[in-house]
């Protein structure tokens, strides 16, 4: 059974949609109608809409050849800011939260490009600092929101579609367009795929490596805002495993740790798969601990498979005779 699962992961990793369908299929069979009903689907889509923007941002960073593990921390801080500054009005608090995300993104971008620090290390550092900020700001406690109506963003629905899903979908469409149809997006692929080649083609290297970090942090902010709205509160435990989950989702969606490839649609499907997995496990009554275990196994497998596939791809691509 485990061997089969592993085998499937190997084959299907390249096609996230099959993986997604497989997961739904699997849980539908095992759980029957308790899984495949409107409530569950709505719940899943609500959860996906919180995680999707981050995974999309992570995919973009991975495509450009980097990685961002500070996204969970930024998400938590933005949630805290948007709740904590509610007294200044909803619009202002959202603006401040977004601003924070942009700021951290700029710092990450500078550390990696000008500071020449390896992306893991740079974002590890900012993650630590931001986590500290969250603890300071929230005083290590959960903080509660006080404005009604703010909940609409996270918990409301337009018809049967949850509001956050609309946001997530919009973000998906926008960035899909950027990555596939705009030069700026194609440049992300170029610098991640072959840096020297990109340089010689006249592509602006600094910009193309800097902007993805700003995007990923900003999207992490968006997720934080949506989550804060849904919970109507914020606490320091937010986003603890988000960074790894977003990386897994992005890689399932076709991104690689070596850069140059990936897709936001794929990342979205990756989030959907992981979200379905979570919900399915919940419905099966699997304990939280076991769930964390499964998720980390998925992460490890994803990273390992990426390494094994990428190794073959490298020898092919760099082959110049």
């Amino acid at each position, binding site marked *: 059974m485990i061997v089969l699962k592993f085998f499937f992961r190997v084959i299907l990793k390249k096609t996230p949609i099959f993986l997604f369908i497989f997961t739904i299929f699997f849980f539908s069979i095992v759980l029957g109608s308790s899984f495949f009903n409107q409530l569950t689907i709505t719940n899943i889509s609500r959860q996906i809409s919180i995680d999707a923007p981050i995974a999309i941002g992570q995919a973009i960073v991975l495509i450009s050849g980097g990685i961002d593990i500070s996204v969970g921390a930024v998400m938590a801080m933005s949630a805290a800011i948007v709740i904590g500054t509610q007294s200044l009005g909803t619009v202002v608090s959202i603006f401040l939260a977004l601003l924070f995300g942009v700021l951290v993104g700029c710092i990450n971008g500078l*550390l990696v490009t000008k*500071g*020449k*620090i*390896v992306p*893991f*290390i*740079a974002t*590890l*550092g*900012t*993650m*630590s*600092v*931001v*986590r*500290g*900020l969250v*603890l*300071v700001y929230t005083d*290590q406690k959960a903080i509660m929101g006080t404005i009604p109506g703010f909940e609409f963003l996270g918990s409301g629905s337009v018809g049967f579609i949850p509001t956050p899903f609309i946001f997530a979908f919009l973000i998906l469409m926008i960035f899909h367009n950027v990555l596939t149809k705009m030069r700026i997006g194609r440049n992300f692929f170029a610098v991640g795929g072959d*840096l*020297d080649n990109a*340089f*010689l083609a006249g592509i602006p290297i600094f910009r193309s490596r800097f902007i993805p970090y700003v995007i990923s942090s900003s999207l992490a902010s968006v997720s934080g805002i949506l989550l804060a709205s849904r919970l109507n509160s914020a606490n320091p435990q937010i986003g603890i*495993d988000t960074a*790894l989950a977003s*990386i897994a989702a992005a890689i399932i969606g076709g991104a690689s*740790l070596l850069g140059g490839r990936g897709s936001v649609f794929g990342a979205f499907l990756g989030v959907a798969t992981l979200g379905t997995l979570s919900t399915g496990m919940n419905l099966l009554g699997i*304990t*939280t*601990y*076991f*769930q*964390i*275990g499964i*998720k*980390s*196994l998925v*992460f*490890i497998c994803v*990273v*390992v498979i*990426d*390494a*094994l596939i990428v*190794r073959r791809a490298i020898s092919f691509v760099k082959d110049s005779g």
Partner: protein
Amino acid sequence: MYFNSKRFLLNFDSRGSLKFKVIKIVRDQIALILLLIMIIAGSQLSDVFLSSKNLLNIVWAVSVLGIVALGQCMLIIACRFDMSVAYSIGLCGVVMVVIQNAGVPWVTSVLVGVFVGLLVGALNGLICVGTNANPFLVTLGTGTLIYATSLSITRSKTVYTPFDDFTDIGRGKLFGVVHYSVLIFLFLAIMLELLLRYSKFGRSLFVIGLNEKVGKLSGFSVNRIVLGAFLICGFTVSIASFIVTSRNGSTVANVGLGLEFESIIAVVLGGTSLFGGSGGALRTVVGVLVLGVLNNLLILMNVQTEVQQIIKGAIFLLIVWLDISLRSKS
């Protein structure tokens, strides 16, 4: 041909020019310099700081981190990381206490705990070596897996040791003077330093960290050496786990939260480069002491723990940036 995207050239041309000599000295002894600065600052800021009680306390407080940092140091010299230490320290302790509660004498339980630590090291090492995946991410993954395991064993609760004398080592002092934990820390540091300087294995860690290709071409078995480094790290984590569990008389799954980050900071502060190929166990001790003094100072100045984390994160980035600027060819 046109654009050398290899950013880090370890071709450090020290042709004896004064500027390079000074930079080299600063880089190598940065930890000691920092330590001195902070001790001086500390003595100014507080009367209690220089008291022997306080200083000994500092060393006692950091010995757990210190032992973990020693293991981390081995890996960093060979250009790898272990991000699972924060959680494996929990698992080793949990296993120790749980089997103690099942009637196993505590000495045996410690041996089992060490075995668990080695097992974790082997797991990390085999995956990294076998698949060539990024050790950073792999160990982040295994760390979370280990965390899940500890949580499920303890059901997120604290587990207590049933043996009174189990806490003797963690809390006790030899001849009533020096804490056992400090002695163990220093002993491990000396052993590992000897390993690094005088054994073939230690030498090969540096070789691999500096130029893995040369290592391979010179007959070093890179896979075996990296695996060995992971095993050592697993071992040190298990010892650290023993001490902290013994000290507290209990343990909980998240006892080591933040340890992975702190151990890397301590190693880098001590002068070991994140690029591999340089550093040492004694230097890491200094780096750990620097962190210890820093913690102490911050506490004496009544800085909250959360702010401390921010400061440490900022220092980390600063040190890493310094490391890079001092190492890239001009």
